């Protein structure tokens, strides 16, 4: 009898221990926002941490930590160098991060394959914004004017040359056959400053992000000539035409996503993939995504990693074309 008991006990121990080895469960889930509190990366982290708690998918609260520096460069180096196998930690990223990686600004030796890309969970889209009393009423008129007078208009946005703001301007310039190197582009500190400059007529075209701009739509001071999205957006944006339907192949998606350290095991990676897959289906997540002004853009696990490799290649080509990379 006691032999039997021992056998059962050791079986039980095996099962318990074994299952412990198998099912990874983060003991201190953490989302690292590679910026100061209050910015886009903070928003990205809150989106996941809030909805994970609300939907009860994670029983421990996911803490948001901040590591500002170089639009994510400090965090990228930190994760690869110091915490490559920390499966507790997911790190927020965006289109801007991919652009910087492609241009070697996160470290010349690093590529997108230096980390494991987990998921993208929402997006914002580029928009061509002008003053309400500007003479253009659609993208065609603007492009025609730009073609006729390439040096006559100034584009301005919230980022330096090579940033995602600049690339949006470069895409508009390219529509008019202007080499991005020759366009008149002014870099401001953030979208707010660029909007002020647009108000004061110091710049004429502001390639901005639509969700960030949404607070200004009702002010009546500006008009949006085109959205740089594949399709029209719902809600108060539904009246704004896309560049595509106006006959231009210009799309700029600012997706928001996450990566894990490079040495996180497949099992841990799969754990997160499954968690996020479940999360993306919950009403709590969808509500949270809408509250943060983001549009649906869901890509999880391996497809996302492959998407990142494609993005890197695309951005490298764009950068080369613009003379930013040799």
């Amino acid at each position, binding site marked *: 009898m006691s032999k039997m008991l021992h056998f059962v006990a050791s079986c039980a121990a095996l099962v318990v221990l074994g299952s412990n080895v198998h099912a990874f469960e983060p003991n201190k889930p953490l989302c690292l926002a590679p910026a*100061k509190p*209050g*910015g886009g990366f903070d928003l990205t982290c809150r989106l996941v941490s809030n909805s994970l708690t609300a939907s009860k998918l994670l029983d421990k609260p996911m803490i948001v*930590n*901040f*590591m*500002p*520096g*170089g*639009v994510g*460069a*400090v965090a*990228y*180096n930190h994760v690869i160098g110091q915490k490559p196998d920390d499966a507790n930690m997911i790190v927020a990223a965006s289109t801007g991060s991919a652009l910087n990686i492609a241009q070697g*600004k*996160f*470290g010349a030796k690093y590529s997108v394959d230096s980390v494991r890309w987990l998921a993208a969970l929402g997006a914002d889209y580029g928009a061509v914004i002008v003053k309400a009393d500007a003479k253009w009423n659609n993208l065609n008129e603007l492009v025609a004017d730009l073609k006729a007078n390439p*040096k006559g208009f*100034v584009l*301005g946005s919230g*980022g*330096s*040359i*090579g*940033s995602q703001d*600049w690339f949006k301007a470069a895409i508009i310039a390219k529509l008019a056959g202007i080499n991005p190197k020759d366009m*008149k*582009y*002014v*870099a*401001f*500190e*953030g979208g*707010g*400053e660029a*909007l*002020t*400059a647009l*108000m*004061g007529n*110091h*710049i004429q075209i502001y390639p901005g992000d639509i969700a960030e701009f949404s607070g200004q739509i009702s002010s009546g001071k500006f008009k949006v000539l085109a959205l740089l999205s594949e399709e029209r957006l719902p809600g108060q944006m539904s009246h704004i035409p896309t560049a595509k339907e106006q006959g231009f192949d210009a799309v700029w998606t600012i997706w928001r996503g996450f990566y894990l350290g490079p040495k996180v095991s497949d099992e841990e990676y799969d754990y997160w993939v499954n968690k996020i897959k479940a999360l993306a289906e919950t009403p709590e997540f969808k509500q949270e995504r809408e509250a943060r002004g983001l549009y649906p853009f869901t890509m999880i696990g391996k497809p996302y990693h492959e998407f990142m490799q494609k993005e890197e290649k695309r951005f490298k080509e764009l950068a080369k074309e613009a003379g930013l990379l040799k």
Partner: protein
Amino acid sequence: MEILSSLATGFSVALTPTHLFLIFLGTLLGTLFGALPGLGPINGVAILLPICYTLGLPVESSLIMLAGIYYGAEFGGRISSILLNVPGDAGAVFTCLDGYPMAQKGLAGPALALSGVASFVGATIAIVGLTFFAPLLAKVAIYFGPSEYFVLMIFAFATISALMGTNPVKSLIGLTVGLIVGVVGVDSTTGVLRFTFGEAELYDGFEFLIVIVGFFAVSEIMLMLEHHSSDDFEMPKITRIYITLKELLTCKWTMLRSSAIGFLVGVLPGTGASIASAVSYTIAQKISDKDKTFGTGDMRGLAAPESANNACSGGALIPMLTLGVPGSGTTAVLLGALMLYNINPGPMLFVEQPLLVWGLIASMYIGNIMLLIMNFPMVRVFTKILQIPYWLLVPSVIVLAFVGVYSVNMSTYALFLTIILGILGYFLRKLHYPMAPVILGFVLGKIMEDNLRRAFAMSGGEVGIFFQGSVNWILWSLTIFILFVPMLAKMVVRRYQLKR
């Protein structure tokens, strides 16, 4: 009328219990920071900014409290000047000249009372000026594009070099140090990394708070450590803490004139309380000193710098709130506070954040009255605080400062940078370099460079853009005028002396 209704909204923000408490706390702490020799308004704001931020205070509450520290410090700076002949902060240097002799004559109480009233008058005039001029300037400010900002910065640098007190060369060197620290990081136009030596932590340049805490708080503490204790001073007896109406009336013109001067100097970008009080004292002396009593305890000589340095703090908020350009070293820190909250100070601030701006302005009316009330019965308490031993003060300040830096940056790297800058600041101070130009070089240099690059990007490299438009021409004329002011002043003085 629009202004009055906006102001009413402002009062509705400022008159909540929380905000009233924050105003009280801010002005009280400000008076303390001002009164303690060495710890001026810049230190006070720099140390408390991260604390407000990490406590999760909303931006208007933070700004109301931090501004309270600013003008409270201008109020408190006079106390140690009068009692100990040690200026509490840079703006109170000229307060010593007549304040200390008064105290020696046994008039410490009346001197404190008079300077309290003078401070109140100066501050009130400046706030009224701020209320009416700031919205006007904000309306014009939308016409300030990159080229106008660049010329405005030239004007600011001209003002600094023309008016910076005793040693213009050291001021210029200080400015340059600030400029050098300011160019580290990603270049805002091309995205190229500058002077980062491959350190990812340096990509964003030196964080504002690190520079302020390093150059000001840390270096100040090192200087404090050199002195053994503050009780080497002998505290004069304070008798009556009031002044008669007759005494007050002898100073009425001095107060009004100095308030106007202080306000104007404050509005000029880049100048601060020290210049305001220097200019107003000199002018008061030229006009009123018929019996050669200035410097021996003349009440007018005390009223002049105190009205001026308090008026200056109100004036300095105007360019900060309307153009996003600091009017003084401390407003540079307040500007940093706004940016920490992701608010872009600039022409749109009055339109986009009316509650913030008007709440701040209204809070200053309240804060000033609080300061006046606080400063009469509580003067004795403040004089006691001057006797806090350094072994208690120094560690508290250093802990607060470092906790602040860490809580905003979350990195030990930031702490090392702070210490390095602190050591650099210490040596600069030992060599008698003024610190305000350093911080202005750091802040204004960035604005200047960014706008130069933007202007060239707009014009396609044509220099002509800086000479287009009436705003530019006005700014150029002002620049030339300000450069000749010292020369003109010298000529006037020489004539004046010849006539004698």
